[in-house]
């Protein structure tokens, strides 16, 4: 069953060393301007580190299938949470264009307050009514 494997120090030391090296790597890489790739590299390193911690320090590699499924489920729900939220916020301009209505504030509730000139002030009832004509 689950904890059949013999406890061994070696994986812990190796994982620890890898985590330290990856931490140094993420700082060094951030020093270079890679454009959008900066974020991708940072996240690839962070996900790699998290995976190592989950598999070895948290013993998920040796856990029951049910526990492993639960761990995968947590990642899946996190992807849904962030992914579906982003799908909504990043396509509001597109859906406005489909509707034929002018682009409006993406609904962060900030209006013009946050100093973002690209954002139009949310239309009052009069403008909204005019659009429907």
């Amino acid at each position, binding site marked *: *069953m*689950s*904890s059949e494997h013999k*406890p061994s*120090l070696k994986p*812990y030391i190796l994982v*620890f060393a890898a*985590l*330290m090296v990856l*931490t140094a790597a*993420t*700082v060094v890489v*951030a*020093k*270079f*301007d*890679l454009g959008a790739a*900066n974020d991708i590299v*940072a*996240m690839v*390193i*962070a996900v790699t*580190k*998290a995976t190592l*911690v*989950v598999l*070895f*320090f*948290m*013993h998920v590699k040796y*856990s*029951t299938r*049910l*526990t492993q499924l*639960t*761990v995968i*489920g*947590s*990642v899946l*729900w*996190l992807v849904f*949470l*962030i992914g579906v*939220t*982003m799908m909504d*916020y*990043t396509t509001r301009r597109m859906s406005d264009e489909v509707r034929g209505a002018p682009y409006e504030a*993406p609904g*962060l509730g900030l209006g013009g*307050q*946050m*100093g*973002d*000139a690209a954002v139009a002030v949310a239309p009052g009832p009069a403008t909204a009514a005019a659009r429907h004509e």
Partner: protein
Amino acid sequence: MSNPALGAAGGAAGTAAAGHAVAHHPDLQHHFDTLEQQKDSSSLGMWMFLVTEVLFFGGLFATYVLYRLRFPGVFAEASHHLNVPMGAINTGVLICSSLTMALAIYAAQVNRKKAIVGWLLATIVLGATFLVVKAFEYKEKFTHHLVPGPNFDPSQFTPDHARPAEMFFSLYFVMTGIHALHMVIGIGLLAWLVVQSNKGRFDSTYYNPLEMTGLYWHFVDIVWIFLFPLLYLLGYHAR
């Protein structure tokens, strides 16, 4: 299941307190057949809790992504006010504490009871070190008027960037603050484990509380693994 001794114990427990008449490990609860089954159940339960934690922090990360997509330049500029060396050192400190936590469990697995206490104490010291460094960072933010609210000094930012920069620091304080709160709770759990280990309660047959606290501690480490690049290293090349 097929253990007649346990069946008998269950029956006896129904009538009187004679349930303990059958010899078994003192930490094996009656509704489990074996210690291993008990440990697997605990792990599953702990992970279920951690899933809720993932989604809890996930909501904060989603908020972060949303505002950052909206104000990418401002977030990079605001990030320049964070102390990268301190953040990097703290990342290392937390990884060390994860190692010592894993070693405490290893010590239990190989029946080195004194080593359990030692590694747990090392984990507490490292956790406390993290919080002390964090406290210095917070103090720096207060003296530099970077804490959102009436004392926030907008003149340090490009015109029009101050309000969203304040939002960056709100996210910074909420995310690192809740992370730090988790650390404090973790240190409390570790202190309790030190007392229990010192009594010699854990060995290779039973170390569930160590394992479960370990899961929690490593989870908190993982949260920081994501917080560090997202908050501190944003636009680091442009400094």
